[in-house]
Each structure stands twice: as structure tokens, then as C-alpha cells.
């Protein structure tokens, strides 16, 4: 494990994260120094574009391209004086996802360094870390790292004599999954109810306080110091046959060794599950899994050879999402699992648009009925109709389609189990766990 093979996690120390001096001795802040002293913002943008870095927040949008949508005005144009903002999305509330927490608690200076690079590139002088309220330890560690960074002039005015100024602040939130959706996050930061905004305009043009804003995930940003230090070719060559770079994969459920591993992009699902997570617990068999958090489609044991990158997982019928496997064993009821997922989405729906506000609780009602053995065959049709009502294009944001993904795929793959509930009038798994 070293800086070239495990750039994101090689400096992680969960017991006691490196302070600024220790982090600098390990090559920390060299990436930011290079960016500020050797390159213009547009040169850094080219480097990030060439690295082919894609967003790790779930959608996999190319980071360099996203940044290039931030408008640049002539100095004669009054708008050139306007603020721009960088926001780090550290809201991590997708069930089954715990990768950003590792970086936030384990190596906070890496994120600060990364944000200096990103903010410099897009021309932002103010940046925020939007942290979920439950991550108390991360908040404490980020606050103390921020203090050190200000003292060492990595934040504030005239950073390291470069004439570049950046103020970086921590905002701690107070719950609600929807705050992680980037336009809802912007409303939350403005002190408003966290309902998503209509797009366009996109945040890159009109975001926080109406000004150009880039929102990036913790893991996405944390790659930047290393890309600056080692170059885009190195980044691409970490995983020559797949999307560029490394990825923090996770696995949880009733498996032998749940956890997180930084691996080259594109390792197979089976490698993560069997080699790293140790396979299923004794006496249990793999029934299915969600490859990237709660809002991804189920995959089956037959998909274990699928590489965990954006295209391959999409071809298999799901999404890479956050790269955290949620593993379903053969003694947990698939209907109960889907019910639990839909309860989550129903509770976390922000209530703005009808298909989601009404559709998710309706799905919960039907699934509860089926799980209790009171469902009918018509209920399956109703669920399929709901999946259609809540699909992309019919809702105001991606939360509802995210709820459809596990539901619809479960109806396909676990049809037998749904039918057993209906035909036998009870849950066949009842009491198994």
C-alpha cells in the first residue's frame, strides 16, 4: 500500500489522523503547491480533464467537464467580480454507503488540499464542506484541520504567496437524505427547506446564492492532490482497462469481513465480495446484491464476474452508484428487504412532487401487505405501475427513480418469492432470522 497504488487511503489513520506537519512530511500539500505555483487555473482544468476523473457521488459525471461549465467573464464584465463557490458534498446518507466517512475521519487534510486545488481551478474564493449532522467525529477533526490550515496559510489570504485567497468553512447539517442531492444541498446551505431546484439553470451557472457553484463528492475531490502530483497518465494507468483511477469499494450485509477497500476501478463484484469481504457468513448463500447503495438495481450471483465500473455495471442492468455492495443472503426475505428500502425512500421523500410523495408510501403500503401474506396478484401490477409513475422524467429529482431501481429489479429477480408470499398467505422466511 503506497501513494501510487492507494492514493486515497494510504494516509488514512482512523485512530489519530495526521496533523498538518505529519501530512506535509508524507507529501501532503505538494499537489496544491504545484497547482498554485506552477499552473494557471486553466492548466489545472486541462490536467483534471485529461485524468478522466469521474464523479464518485453516484452519477459518474466527468469532473473536468463539470468544472468547464463555470462561466468565465472578461474583467470588463461586472459579473467577473461575482463570487463563485465550491461545495464539498459530505452528506453521505445513502444506505449502505460509508466510504466518505473514512476519508473525512481518517485524512481530513487531504480533502482540504483537494478543495484548494478545485477552488483555485474554478476561481472560487469561498468554499463549504457540507457534512451530515451525524458525523460528529468527522466534524471535530475537520474543524481542527481547518484551523491548522489557516495557521499555516494554506487557507485565507495570499495562500503561500500566490495571491490566491480561499476561505473554507464547515457546515454541519441536521439529517434528511435529500440534502445530498446537489440542488437541495444548495437550498439547505442557503438556510431554506432542502427541496431540489429545477434544472436548468445548472448550479455551475447559478447555484449557491445565485452564483456559479460546483458541488463535488468527498471521494471525487480527494483524488485531486494525487492527480496534480503524479499526473493524469499515472491516474489512468491505475486501471488501464476501466474507468480511470482507484475507487473505494465497500461491502456489508451478512458476509465474513464487511468493510472498505481501495482498489483499481473495474475489479469484479466477485473479487470485492469473495476476496476482500471473505464471502458469505457460514451457512448462508448469496441471494442477490445492490452494487452501489440503496438506490441501485439488484444483481444476482450470475453477475459476480461483472467489473465494477460505470459501463459494465450499467450493461448488467444496474448502476455503480457509490460502489458499496449491500449483500442479501438466502435467509433474509427479499420482500422484507425491499420493504425496508421503500420505507427509507418514503420517509426521506421531500414531498415536492406527487409521484414520489404519494408513490413511495403507496409502495410501502402494498409491500407491507405482501410481506404480511395479505397481498394479491393485482398488487404486483400496482407496484409495476408505480415503478412507471416514479421513473426518470416524471419526478422533480432522482430520489424517486432511485427508489424504483431496487423495487423494479426485485420484482423481476425475486418474482418467485413475491408469489410465494401471495400464494401461501405468509412470509416463507418468517422466523428464519
Amino acid at each position: 500500500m503506497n501513494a501510487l497504488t492507494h492514493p486515497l487511503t494510504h494516509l488514512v489513520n482512523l485512530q489519530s489522523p495526521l496533523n498538518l506537519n505529519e501530512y506535509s512530511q508524507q507529501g501532503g500539500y505538494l499537489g496544491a503547491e504545484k497547482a498554485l505555483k506552477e499552473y494557471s487555473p486553466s492548466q489545472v482544468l486541462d490536467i483534471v480533464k485529461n485524468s478522466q476523473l469521474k464523479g464518485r457521488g453516484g452519477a459518474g459525471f466527468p469532473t473536468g467537464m463539470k468544472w468547464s461549465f463555470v462561466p468565465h467573464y472578461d474583467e470588463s464584465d461586472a459579473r467577473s467580480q461575482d463570487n463563485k463557490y465550491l461545495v464539498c458534498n459530505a452528506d453521505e446518507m445513502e444506505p449502505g454507503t460509508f466510504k466518505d466517512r473514512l476519508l473525512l475521519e481518517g485524512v481530513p487534510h487531504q480533502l482540504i488540499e483537494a478543495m484548494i486545488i478545485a477552488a483555485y481551478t474554478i476561481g472560487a474564493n469561498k468554499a463549504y464542506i457540507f457534512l451530515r449532522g451525524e458525523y460528529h467525529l468527522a466534524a471535530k477533526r475537520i474543524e481542527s484541520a481547518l484551523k491548522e490550515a489557516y495557521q499555516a496559510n494554506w487557507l485565507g489570504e495570499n495562500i503561500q504567496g500566490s495571491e490566491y485567497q480561499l476561505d473554507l468553512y464547515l457546515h454541519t447539517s441536521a439529517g434528511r437524505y435529500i440534502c445530498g442531492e446537489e440542488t437541495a444541498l444548495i437550498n439547505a446551505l442557503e438556510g431554506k427547506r432542502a427541496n431540489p431546484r429545477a434544472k436548468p439553470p445548472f448550479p455551475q451557472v447559478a447555484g449557491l446564492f445565485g452564483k456559479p457553484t460546483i458541488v463535488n463528492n468527498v471521494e471525487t475531490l480527494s483524488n485531486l492532490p494525487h492527480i496534480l502530483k503524479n499526473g493524469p497518465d499515472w491516474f489512468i494507468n491505475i486501471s488501464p482497462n476501466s474507468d480511470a483511477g482507484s475507487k473505494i469499494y465497500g461491502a456489508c450485509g451478512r458476509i465474513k469481513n464487511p468493510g472498505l477497500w481501495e482498489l483499481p476501478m473495474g475489479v469484479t463484484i466477485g473479487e470485492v465480495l469473495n476476496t476482500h469481504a471473505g464471502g458469505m457468513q457460514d451457512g448462508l448463500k448469496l441471494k442477490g446484491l445492490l452494487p452501489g447503495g440503496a438506490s441501485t438495481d439488484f444483481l444476482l450471483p450470475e453477475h459476480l464476474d461483472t467489473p465494477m465500473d460505470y459501463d459494465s455495471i450499467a450493461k448488467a442492468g444496474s448502476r455503480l452508484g457509490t460502489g458499496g455492495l449491500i449483500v442479501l443472503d438466502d435467509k433474509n426475505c427479499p420482500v422484507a428487504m425491499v420493504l425496508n428500502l421503500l420505507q427509507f425512500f418514503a420517509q426521506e421523500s421531500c414531498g415536492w412532487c406527487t409521484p414520489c410523495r404519494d408513490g413511495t408510501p403507496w409502495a410501502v403500503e402494498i409491500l407491507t401487505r405482501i410481506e404480511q401474506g395479505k397481498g394479491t396478484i393485482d398488487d404486483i401490477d400496482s407496484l409495476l405501475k408505480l415503478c412507471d409513475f416514479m421513473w426518470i422524467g416524471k419526478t422533480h429529482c432522482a430520489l424517486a427513480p432511485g427508489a424504483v431501481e431496487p423495487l423494479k429489479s426485485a420484482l423481476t429477480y425475486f418474482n418467485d418469492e413475491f408469489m410465494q408470499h401471495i400464494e401461501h398467505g405468509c412470509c416463507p422466511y418468517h422466523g428464519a432470522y
Partner: protein
Amino acid sequence: MEIIKTITVHPKDYLTSQELAEIDHEISIMETREAAGIEALKVVQAHRGWISDESLHVIATYLRMSSAELEGVATFYNLIYRQPVGKYVIHLCDSVSCHLTGYQQVLNAIVQHLNIGYGQTTEDNLFTLLSNVCLGGCDKAPVMMIGKQHYEHLTPEKAVEIITALQNQNQNENVEVEL
């Protein structure tokens, strides 16, 4: 009239200097006063345990926004308590990884031990029980959070032990637990 009196309390007569200092800091890092709303609610809640109507009015006045608007924000968030809560708020994760690894048994044990359900507070005002979405400890599921502390790898026995330890600590008046 009770209501008029409530709204006309001056924030500086109601909020402590420490609360004001913390809220002022939050205002200073945002572009508008309103944007400090959620952090201001959290500041007052940290000092007073929950957000009463009076606190809400006062914070809204201080941020120069309407109470109705701030109420809309306050009630949106599950970590803002708009009702009195116990000294310890138990946030038990009920999301999918915990569901797969024994959440229901842990919940049953807590409910039985404290004799309260979700949304309720024990008679001695020590514990309030709430569910929480995924706490980001799925590899160590089941998980709960009490105050700022996360407790992982829960079993029904372990959950009851943790709660009993807090009960015992509280009987022993001198021992304060860091929350």
C-alpha cells in the same frame, strides 16, 4: 396577550452571550443571515436540549426572517427536536444493512428494556427513542447513536448494556457523560 409577549422578547434578552457568539460566527461565514438558520437552531438546541416555540421565534427574529419560514426549516430536519427530549436521545439506525443484520431484535430489546416506543421519552426523562437513517457504519451493523457517540456491532444484549451503563452513570450524580 401571551403570543405578543412571546414575539416581542428581544433576542439579546433571551439568548445567552455564548449562544449569540456561536450564532454570530455562523452568520459571519454565510452571505445572508437566513443561511445561518439551521446552524443557529443547532446552537440553541445544543444548549437547551430542544427548540421551543419561544426559541424558534427568537432565532427567527435574530436572523430577520419570519418564524413561519424558520419553522419550515426546523421541521424539515430530523435532528432538530421541536418537542422536549430526554437527556439521551437514542438514534437507532433502521436502514437496510442494519435491517439485514439484526436491527429488529435490537429494537425489540430496547423497547422492552425502556418500555417506550419510537418518539417516546422515558418517565424519568432520561431517554428518547428515535429511528435514524443509515448512520454510515454499515460494515459494523447494527448501529445506534446516542448524543455524539456511535455504538456499533450491536446485539440485543449489548444495546441494553450500553443503556444500563448510562442509567447507572446517572444515578451516580457526580459522573457526567460527555455527549
